[in-house]
């Protein structure tokens, strides 16, 4: 099916939930209201004409400082330079957060892209893990790195970083920690103690931590 036709099907189903169709892009995409995304995905999965049985990719995005004119990013990466001097920015990030869904159908051989955008203060999107099981890990990763909370997710824990990690690294205002769990991370050679014993952080995933069944 043509992507435009898919969007029209979707818009007829969702009504006000389908916000806009962006045709003049490299890859056309549909903007969906956050509240309607789970319905939209379930519809696209179940409908025989669309039949999107594969979620190719789910990406969390921090749109803060996005400037289409390409005048440079307003928010820099905050870390430490080669001499261990911290880079500090006074600016407070206030842009939206977003999620992009890339769908594919094995039977129909077509693709579709959905996007949602939520305000930074809310940062909640309904989970689609019940539609595609593969979304569960993608959403955990998006929660971990971008800090978007997926409501209705069966097991929303951090995916890559430790449970006790502070902050969400792919946010544009994220500041790299100088030290974590006793280990210097900022690249300064031999801080105070040359060989610190790394200690598991309190509340982190300790060896033998229980899985989701008992959580």
């Amino acid at each position, binding site marked *: 099916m043509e992507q435009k036709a898919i969007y029209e099907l979707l818009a007829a189903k969702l009504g006000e939930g389908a916000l806009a169709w962006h045709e003049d*892009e*490299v*890859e056309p*995409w549909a903007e969906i209201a956050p509240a309607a995304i789970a319905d939209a995905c379930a519809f696209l999965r179940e409908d025989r004409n669309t039949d999107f*049985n*594969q*979620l*190719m*990719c789910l*990406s*969390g*995005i*921090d749109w803060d400082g*996005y*400037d*289409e*004119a*390409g*005048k*440079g*990013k307003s928010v820099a*990466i905050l870390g430490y330079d080669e001499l261990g001097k911290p880079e500090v920015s006074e600016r407070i990030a206030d842009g939206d957060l977003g999620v*992009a869904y*890339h769908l594919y159908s*094995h039977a129909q*051989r077509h693709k579709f*892209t959905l996007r949602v955008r939520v305000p930074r203060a809310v940062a909640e999107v309904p989970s689609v*893990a019940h539609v*595609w*099981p*593969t979304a*569960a*890990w993608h959403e955990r990763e998006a929660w971990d*790195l971008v800090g978007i909370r997926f409501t209705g997710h*069966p*097991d929303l824990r*951090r*995916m*890559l*970083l*430790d449970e006790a990690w502070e902050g969400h*690294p*792919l946010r544009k205002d*994220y500041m790299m920690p100088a030290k974590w769990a006793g280990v210097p991370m900022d690249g300064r050679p031999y801080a105070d103690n040359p060989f610190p014993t790394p200690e598991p952080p309190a509340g982190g*995933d300790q*060896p*033998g*931590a*229980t*899985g*989701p*069944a008992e959580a």
Partner: protein
Amino acid sequence: MATGDKNLTGWADQDHVPGIKSELLELNMGPQHPATHGVLRLLLKTDGEIVYQVTPVIGYLHRCAEKIAEGVNYKQWVVYTDRFDYLAPVCCNHAYVTAVEKLLKPEVPERAEHLRIVTAELSRIASHLIALATFGLDMGAWTPLLYCFREREEILNLLERIAGGRMLYNYFVPGGVRYDVPDEQWIKDVLSFITMLETKKIKDYNDLLSYNKIFIERTADVGVIDAETAKAYACTGPVLRGSGVKFDCRRDDPYSVYHKFDFEIPVGMGEMGTVGDCWDRYMVRVREIEQSCRIIRQALDTLPEGPYQAIPLNKMVKVPAGAAYSRTESAKGEIGHYIISDGGQIAFRNKVRSPSFCNLQVVEKVGVGQMVSDLVALVGSLDIVLGEIDR
């Protein structure tokens, strides 16, 4: 997804032997474990040898590549794509440069596309050889590793002659490849190598491992992933094809110039047991090596003359604003790059969909009810690379 829940309900409360209270044993497999292919950690709940719940814990190799993508320019980031799937680095480069080229729209010369395919397929063979070797190692066969590494060294030599590096090449640039073919002898050497591989070496592997009775006993009917599960968990690559689904990005969603070449897509047929068992996934890889050889031969036979770069190497790339998702078939499956550009020299956001990440997730479902030793076979047959899972 805690798929093991239903098996666990009320289990510990039951008195299997009257008067003796029994409970499940928690077993920690990894992150330093010889059979987890890197720093993967699996939390198991077992009753004796039977696994009741598997929870993969990943992130021990999280190297922040997506954050780095927001700090280095488009050409510099090719270096980091090498280090995702370090067994088949050229395939990862391919996914990234096709995503950049979707936005940039340079006219990639035909010769560059052919060279890309030749190197990517060589890299795929090298990765599959490691997959065979380590899978054999997991099953207790040490000898195939020595044979597979011998051929892999030949591939690394060939790639070193064209790309300059031994293992990680940084060979692709947006708009072409970095170096041309060094000399005519290189083409002859590649052709003679793949002829040797096709005629002799694959037979060696089959004799040593594939049709070995012990190996078949360990892998047939073990870790069966049916087609529906594979699709639902978005498994790709040999894992999906091992389950009998005939899907390959190179054929069904063509990129580069793969549409010009004639090759087959091997799928699991359940020759030794059930469709989608570990042996099928293993055998798909062996057969893909043959198909890769076919592609390389065709690509080299029709190698066109002409330039190999659309953009000079010393020129900075400025990508127009927009977003593009591109997927290619890596050795492990479908690797996708989602690039959002704001028009500058540095990507605004670069998300990587790695095949191993999605393939590994199926362990949570399929691993339940298996023996612990069969779980090793299952994880080994998925052929995961932790650099790609954790990024």
